[in-house]
């Protein structure tokens, strides 16, 4: 059971994620979009979307730090565990609250504004359920002040997954809330390529460097992708 959850499922999710992204990019470029609904409603979106995106991008950064950088490294850099923890809860909590508030506004908007609801796809529903539950549990863990040191359980296991030697025992001893958060997150990752979340991989940073006016010749413009 533990093996299935912590050593097999991550690879299933990652394979679906990678394979799904490649498949979608090759065969459904027309669907690869943020699918803006601002035309239908702007007031709530103007509140919710920047809040949510700001929060989620901060959260992503926090996860990268917490999961990928071993505790040894921050200690070696002279940051005591107490300081780290205070930062993680402070910044993480703030980011989480922003994300949650933003998400709440976005979901409320999606359900109550008729035009937005009618423009929703089944994949939007799946996305919001997975995204919402992951965020809720994650934020609850952070704010509950739970004393568990995830950098000794979840994080080593997470890194071990990418070393292809999953440390099942490490995660197995983490509290159930951490485990549930991780499980739903893997499901979200598996579903990612099939939702509008693909737009997160299209952050157009190339815009900062390219000339303003884009010229293309007629033949070269057939089915060419830039980002």
């Amino acid at each position, binding site marked *: 059971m533990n093996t299935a959850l912590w050593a097999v499922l991550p690879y299933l999710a990652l394979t679906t994620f990678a394979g799904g992204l490649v498949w979608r990019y090759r*065969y*459904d*470029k*027309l*669907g*690869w*979009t*943020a*699918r*803006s*609904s*601002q*035309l*239908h409603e*702007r007031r709530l*979106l*103007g509140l919710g*979307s*920047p809040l*949510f*995106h*700001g929060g989620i991008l901060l959260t992503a950064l926090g996860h990268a730090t917490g999961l990928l950088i071993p505790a040894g490294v921050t200690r070696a850099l002279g940051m005591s565990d107490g300081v780290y923890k205070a930062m993680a809860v402070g910044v993480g909590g703030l980011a989480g609250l922003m994300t949650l508030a933003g998400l709440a506004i976005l979901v409320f908007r999606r359900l109550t504004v008729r*035009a937005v609801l*009618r*423009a929703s*796809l089944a*994949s939007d529903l799946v996305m919001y359920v997975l995204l919402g539950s992951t965020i809720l549990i994650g934020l609850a863990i952070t704010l509950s002040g739970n004393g568990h040191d995830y950098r000794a359980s979840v994080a080593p296991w997470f890194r071990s997954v990418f070393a292809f030697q999953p440390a099942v025992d490490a995660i197995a001893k983490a509290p159930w809330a951490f485990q549930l958060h991780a499980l739903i997150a893997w499901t979200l990752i598996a579903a990612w390529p*099939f*939702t509008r979340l693909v*737009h997160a991989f*299209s952050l*157009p*940073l*190339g*815009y*900062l460097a*390219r000339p*303003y*006016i*884009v*010229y*293309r*010749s*007629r*033949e070269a*413009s*057939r*089915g*060419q*992708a*830039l*980002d």
Partner: protein
Amino acid sequence: MRVLAQMAMVMNLDKCIGCHTCSVTCKQAWTNRGGVEYAWFNNVETRPGQGYPRTYEDQDRWRGGWTLTRRGRLKLRSGSRLRKLATLFFNPHLPALSDYYEPWTYDYQNLITAPAGDDLPTAKPTAPITWSANWDDSLAGGPELAQHDPILKAMSERIRLEFEQAFMFYLPRICEHCLNPSCVASCPSGAIYKRTEDGIVLVDSDTCRSWRSCVTGCPYKKVFLNHQTGKAEKCTFCFPRIELGMPTVCAQTCVGRLRYIGVVLYDPDRVLEAASVRDEHSLIDAQKQVLLDPHDPSVIEAALRSGIPQDWVVAAQRSPVYSLIFDYQLALPLHPEYRTLPMVWYIPPLSPVVDAVRDTGFDGEDAANLFAAVEALRIPIGYLASLFTAGDPAPVREVLRRLVAMRAFMRDINLGRDPDESIPASVGMTGSQMYDMYRLLAIAKAEDRYVIPHAHREDAGAPNDGCSVPTPVSLPFPKVRQS
């Protein structure tokens, strides 16, 4: 010198009867699909009026096009590149659907299912109808509507009061396929591009990511977001037809036969400089200087060296668009002050002047009356200038004088009198030039109104099926819901 070719259009506004045939045939061809019900790649607006989407010309509000920084550098009015990235999550300057209008349909079912009775059954609209793309059609500024016309607002208070002497004309609009397109510059993903062969500005749906920056970027509001697919869509200048030498749908179906299509040659390396000219009144001349004289041997040589095919150079020499801009000096660009160097040009209408003369009890056909009116009438001319010359009345007056002269000159001919050479001479033309101008404006056949060389495929490498639209791939999932 690098040379590129550009497909361009001229519309002769005096001949537009506001029938909307162009809009409807365009819609049938391009926007009769889900998600773009509200989009009119071609629309016809009554001026004075708010336009479509309403008040789109108010760039303080909608932030379209370019402006100059204090140091004279060209920048997007909607902000720097960083600012555009920072506002990806929410675009503060995007028109809402209600600024275009909420599309509606009718309950046609009722026509066949209504029980028999004395009254004819009706097809009721399915939603309340409160606004549309041409809500103020032919109202010419009934006071409640016209007061929101950004052009009128910008004119002085006094002029607005005198505005009781109403005038009206129609303004058909499509995408301008600009030489300096701010839609292209606004797209962070680089999904909108200008074709090097013919200058047509197109959206690559495969790389559009729904950032909707282009909608704000275009000052003419001629990029539309498909709210089902989330992708931008815009006027294509009917490129599949153009490539085969056929005119656009709007031009071909135009009842007034007022549209001209032709090739102009331009130097892409002069575009930035022309768009950055400080004095707004000099923008038209700067824009004209970007266009090259296709009869000039050095231009011909440079064009051929730049890979422009021989028959395209010939087409540029025969171009009615070039004639109307340069030989006859009649065509003016729409809102040059947006600095996008638009490539759909307009011959401003004389009809507001004629109407004003007639309404005051004088002979609206008499040349002396009309000449005097062109000099004296401040309102219609000021209004036309705000549309076509960044507010400078002089070029508008010059065009209108030529149109008056042509009327007077042709009147003599039609009445069997001797043509009076002093009339064309008074606007710097000869009688035969004026007669040619009259032919092009009044009775030109399709082959003279549309001089469209075929696209060249022999150098394309890949076999071509005669259709440039890529074959769509259909997939079971994920699918956009069609309603």
